[in-house]
């Protein structure tokens, strides 16, 4: 059950990042936040090269798609900093953007001709309802009301 410990670790660490992102954009711009997020990635990669032994042998296609994936993921990280900087609450923004597999599923059906499973279909419907409800910010309370 060692895998469960690692899965919980990932869950907790990713969960904390939602709050640290907000704490960052409360103080500095999304650009500077993203810049230091990137430097942390560079530091981690340097540690990986020194400590771990990555499996260097890679096919060209896999390498190209992985790098493109890194760029897309990175841009998404930047825009998530922008969402938080623009006044989005961490609890709402992080939950909302975590619905991104909805688009992946749609793209996989359209471009890779994958078939939707029942779970995915149900997930897609619930995700759309969730996204609409999450976006409904309550009106600020009136002073003296």
């Amino acid at each position: 059950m060692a895998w469960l410990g690692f899965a919980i670790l990932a869950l907790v660490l990713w969960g904390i990042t939602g709050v640290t992102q907000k704490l960052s954009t409360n103080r500095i711009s999304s650009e500077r936040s993203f810049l230091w997020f990137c430097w942390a990635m560079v530091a981690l990669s340097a540690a990986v090269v020194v400590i771990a032994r990555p499996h260097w042998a890679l096919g060209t296609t896999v390498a190209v798609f992985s790098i493109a994936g890194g760029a897309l993921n990175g841009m998404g990280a930047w825009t998530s900093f922008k969402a938080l900087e623009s006044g989005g609450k961490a609890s709402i923004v992080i939950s909302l953007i975590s619905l991104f597999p909805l688009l992946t599923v749609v793209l996989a059906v359209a471009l890779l001709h994958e078939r939707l499973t029942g779970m995915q279909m149900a997930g897609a419907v619930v995700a759309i309802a969730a996204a609409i409800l999450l976006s409904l910010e309550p009106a600020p309370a009136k002073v003296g009301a």
Partner: protein
Amino acid sequence: MSETSRSRRLPLWLFWSLVTIVLWGTWGLVSKIASDGVDAYMNQLLFTVGIAPLLIFVSWKVRKGVAGENREGRNRGIFWAFLTGILGGVGNMAYFEAMVKGGKASVVTPVTALFPMVTVLLALIFLKERLGRLQWIGLGLAFVAIYLLNA
């Protein structure tokens, strides 16, 4: 379109959240194609190669000066941003390691994808965020959707 006119129809935070969904949704598709044969460490290295052009662009932008930045909290802000990267990266490796140690992707992925639950809990306690009733219902539905879409 100016940001002011856009914000009247769509709050800026929502606009950027939707852009994030588009970028990460596409990333999800790309990584579906790329995932075979990449281990956690190589994934981290390739991710860094992918963000390198962004790093250069943002460095240039920040050097030019960013409007509206609060100078007082800069060091603290940098600390939190750096910590975000470290925790996120280590989280990625833990996720990969969970599968290396025998966890099935069909279990590990939907469970770890529920990480916003931790964010919500921490945001309510430490950031003192308050949500509307409909947003609470939305959160509940979002967790169901996240689980189903990743299962």
